């Protein structure tokens, strides 16, 4: 299992296909076709395509999950008449938006107007490529995956602001401004909360962090950091209670007011992609990634793709928590978010860093690991 990675699968696919094709041709062409560099490049392309498909499918499933879950929170049923239980609803939305006109306002700045959503989408996709979803998902262990992920994650407000500015709408502009202002509030505590995890795990590599959690998941010792991280993630994903940039009540649709058709679909998809990535990060950093506690019977962990399965279950449950929050809390105001960010979350995150340092130096971490390590 462990050597079957997504990349090796795509590599195998490309090799087999290309070798089969090459066998038809005479020697010089056959040699060029089976050139290992070409194989590697093609494998990378296939890998990317698979990654794209997986991320898109997951995102669309996530939207469905939110709609159904939110429906039940609100005492209704949610989408149910398009496809089985409404599963095809989001595909219908996507196809429809794909076909719709995209209107560019006359006074809008074309470059920013089109580049904003596109780059927003691309950065979100890149994020999905970085994260290890199971032991075999990622191509290779980069040493600084966590830092890279967080860096790419925080690009978004910039491009939100670009697209808001260039769509030449007062509501969009205010949404973009809020997005930029909001970033100041949550980025610092978010990173400090991650520092606590890094201190305990001793690595910036997400795979390593997950394997460090085989004895005990980090949410126990680092509960404070988890709270700060979840709150920061809510702000990062721009979900209620921190969805100020697209506060529907006062700023019509916020920064995407002027966007329709495919560009709007980009925004929607990227939003949920970021929500997915946020949930994944919570699972990776605090909930043990794709590992399960050792007291779980082996039958639950030994079937094919068990890692991905459990990882996805955890991710969707974490996202369910976000939906729950959305169903029960109102939106805060910009100045309140800033105040909460600087007055509450930063001290809390500093405290959690301090606690993590104490835990590590005092070597009292194993207290939380109530079961022996599976690797043993």
């Amino acid at each position: 299992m462990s050597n079957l990675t997504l990349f090796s699968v795509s590599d195998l696919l490309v090799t087999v296909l290309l070798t089969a094709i090459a066998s038809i041709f005479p020697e010089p062409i056959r040699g060029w076709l089976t050139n290992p560099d070409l194989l590697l490049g093609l494998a990378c392309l296939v890998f990317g395509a698979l990654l794209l498909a997986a991320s898109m499918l997951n995102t669309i499933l996530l939207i469905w999950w939110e709609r159904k879950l939110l429906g039940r929170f609100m005492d209704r049923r949610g989408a149910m008449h398009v496809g089985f239980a409404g599963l095809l609803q989001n595909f219908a939305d996507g196809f429809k938006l794909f076909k719709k006109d995209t209107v560019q306002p006359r006074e809008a700045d074309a470059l920013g107007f089109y580049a904003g959503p596109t780059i927003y989408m691309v950065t979100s996709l890149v994020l999905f490529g970085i994260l290890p979803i199971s032991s075999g998902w990622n191509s290779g262990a980069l040493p600084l995956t966590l830092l890279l992920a967080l860096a790419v994650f925080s690009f978004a407000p910039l491009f939100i602001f670009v697209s808001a500015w260039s769509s030449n709408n007062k509501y969009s502009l205010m949404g973009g401004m809020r997005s930029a202002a909001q970033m100041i509030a949550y980025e610092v505590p978010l990173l400090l909360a991650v520092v606590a995890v890094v201190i305990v795990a001793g690595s910036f590599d997400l795979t390593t962090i997950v394997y460090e959690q085989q004895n005990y998941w980090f949410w126990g010792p680092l509960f404070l950091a988890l709270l700060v991280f979840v709150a920061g993630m809510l702000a990062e994903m721009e979900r209620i209670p921190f969805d100020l940039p697209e506060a529907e009540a006062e700023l019509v649709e916020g920064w995407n007011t002027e966007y329709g058709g495919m560009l709007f679909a980009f925004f929607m998809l990227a939003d949920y992609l970021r929500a997915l990535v946020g949930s994944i990060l919570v699972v990776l950093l605090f909930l043990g990634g794709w590992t399960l506690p050792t007291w779980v019977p082996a039958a639950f962990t030994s079937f094919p793709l068990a890692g991905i399965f459990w990882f996805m279950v955890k991710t969707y449950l974490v996202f369910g928590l976000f939906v729950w929050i959305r169903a029960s809390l109102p939106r805060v105001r910009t100045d309140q978010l800033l105040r909460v960010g600087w007055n509450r979350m930063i001290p809390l995150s500093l405290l959690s860093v301090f606690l993590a340092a104490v835990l590590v130096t005092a070597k009292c971490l194993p207290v939380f690991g109530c079961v022996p390590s599976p690797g043993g």
Partner: protein
Amino acid sequence: MGGAVEAKEKPNENPILWVARPMATAAKQFAKSLVRPSTIVYPFERLEDPKFRGKVAVESGRPIGVGEVWDNYRGVHALNIATCISCNLCAFSCPDLCIDMVTVPGGDPKHPKKCPQIDYGKCSYCGFCSDACPEGCLTMTTRYELSVTKRADMVYSPERLHEVFRSKLPMNPIRLARPENEDAILLDPPLCIGCNACARDCPTQCITMLDVPKPDAKPGEKLPKRIWKEPVVNDSDCVRCGTCISVCPKECLFWGTRK
């Protein structure tokens, strides 16, 4: 008389509860609706269905005893052409002027039978017409779905209204009682010329023309030129539609209290 009550919030409690309490409420609702949300799956379940009667309870947030609720719903009209007497009261009483009386087959050529045609693009479903209908032939049913793609399809001719009647939808049972001291059609005898217009046009045939004795002309006095008959209204049959008043050429009929 009651005094004033100060609306006060509960004293502040543990601030951690302050986020937890709404979340707990939402979770409670989630658990409740996981079993059965209060949604009616509309094209498959219909509220006006008699099968709903009494089965769905308010305790779950589902609608209350729906069948009973629907008894006097005011939807599309049903018209029984057979019993319509063409009295024009529905068109008279319509505040939105959406009822036209159109000719339907079945009347004699001199007095064509006229029945209401309703434009649902103007109707405000107030029920004044069915309240005014003296024969109970124009009633309102529980049908409410009236989406069309052409504006002209919203005009329901008497035949279409009769089809609604024949489809046996539940109908509005409210029949308003007539007031005790109803006004009657009174006659101002000196003005009458005995022209028979009222008796001819009366939809219920409740007016009969009776002979009045022709007075002896005094010397020098000229008797009015008229037919020596006078209408007599049978109050128990009269539906008070006022047709006679409106057709009277001499304005000698009027509303009043019969002594």
